[in-house]
């Protein structure tokens, strides 16, 4: 399958990634090469086969729905790149 700029731009937009210049050319080539490889799946007839979504079907067990506090607010903020005493800080979202 041919991967053009519009596909890369769309997928990068969804992925919240940016591709420019040489890197953009490289990812186009890589995506084409990998998709050709993935096309080997089309050699298999899967008519009537249900997709496998859970490896261990029928084994999933839910825990009791009881609220508990694992970490404090201060701990939750510990690893943030920018914060004050109560909140995560982000650059200005709305412009005037």
């Amino acid at each position, binding site marked *: 399958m041919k991967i053009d700029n519009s*596909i890369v731009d769309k997928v990068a937009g969804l992925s*919240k990634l*940016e591709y420019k210049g040489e890197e953009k050319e490289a990812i186009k080539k890589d995506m084409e*090469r990998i998709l050709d490889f993935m096309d080997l799946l089309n050699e298999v007839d899967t008519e009537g086969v249900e997709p496998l979504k859970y490896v261990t079907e029928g084994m999933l067990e839910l825990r009791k729905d009881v609220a508990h506090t694992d*970490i404090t607010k201060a*701990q939750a903020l510990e690893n943030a*790149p920018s914060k004050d005493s109560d909140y995560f800080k982000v*650059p*200005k979202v709305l*412009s005037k």
Partner: protein
Amino acid sequence: MASNYTNYLTYREALESGSTTAVNEVKSFLTEIESQKHLNAFLETFDETALAQAEVVDQKIKQGTAGKLAGMVIGLKDNLCYKDHSVSVSSKILTHFKSLFSGTAVERLLAEDAIIIGRLNCDEFAMGSSNEKSAFGPVLNPVDTTRVPGGSSGGSAVAVAANLCHASLGTDTGGSVRQPASFTGTVGLKPTYGRISRWGLIAYASSLDQIGPFTKAVQDSALLLEVMAGGDEFDTTSSQKPVDAYASAKSEGPKKVAVLRDALESEGLSPAVKARFIEIIEKLKAKGHQVEVVDFNLLNQMVPTYYVVSNAEASSNLSRFDGIHYGYRSEQATDIESTYVKSRTEGFGTEVKRRIMMGTFVLSTGYYDAYFAKAQKVRRLIQDKTKAIFQDYDFVLTPTTPHAAFKLGHNSDDPVAMYLEDIFTVHANLAGNPAISLPLGTNEEGMPFGIQLMAPFFGEKELFGFSEEMMKL
């Protein structure tokens, strides 16, 4: 003791008799890690906490209250959370991140008095087959430092192979424990999907990821699984099935072993691997086991299925890295969109971004059915066929890898060639079965390679028993 460690029971006797102490072990490993720094296996050692824990363990040994893993010095792959210690998945995007909790597997090791000595280099986000894709540089193979150790748990494999700790943990999504075990001459296990809780394992592909140990001896692998396995309320996919006494597993009577024709006749198989593989088949037969070649016919689809599924799951899992809640934020972040885009573009490496792009593509409108749903259907066929084989056979035998470790830089310009490194290992992840790589071969250049044994779901006890027998071949 540290350098001639063979298995935990022997070492435990030495601890009990006082001929060594846990503190001595930790100190001698720390010295050895420093002198083997060029291998780049450890990203960080936890000197202070490891020595403190060792002192506690030595006291417990004296008091006779020490746990099942007392004094076993263990390294963790850099994607396993250990409370108040850094963890980065070998990525720039998690620089300065410290875990707020310990993962379940790690908790259970500590509860049995194991000692965590440090965190081990890996391919960034566990994506790679050579450990050349870490943001902190490649790991070198101690057998020949011009070669890769395999990946993605390359640091974990090297730490055991180079005697930098007694055992280590890795994670295996498509072969990331077994392939580096093959390349370094160590024992590497991927348990049944759900046997060990994934809580506290930084996710790559959630339907494929499993934690697994690297060890010198099969019995150590069994012991570690025994401690780590079992249900966990924090991971709904963890199995509540009772945990067997793996460490005392013995194989009894003749077994039925299936060899996959596609693997045996695979064009990519190196002569040394093929010759040894055939020799092992003959030796098993001579011991009275029934070994038969069976058709599978989906070998060519294994790796493409794996890449569609794993990349899709990665694209979803890695969306949590947003430059806001934790980890790296770009200095060029001026608004909300650029906070996401610039932080992720600068924070992730090339291979990680490539997989996010592929995963997002196969999940996107217009391509979902053709790629993602198609791969899930092929995955069902692979699982069904595998189950059918285990109706008639006890084990499936293949080489772990088509060849021994390759040179650094060898597969660097072709992602597909690198992906094919996983051809024999992804099967167990796609189907969910347990599999182990046993160090049973050496090629003409003296490089080790592994033979892989796969068992039915939750067949670890039989797997370990037969592995002990295989190690004598």
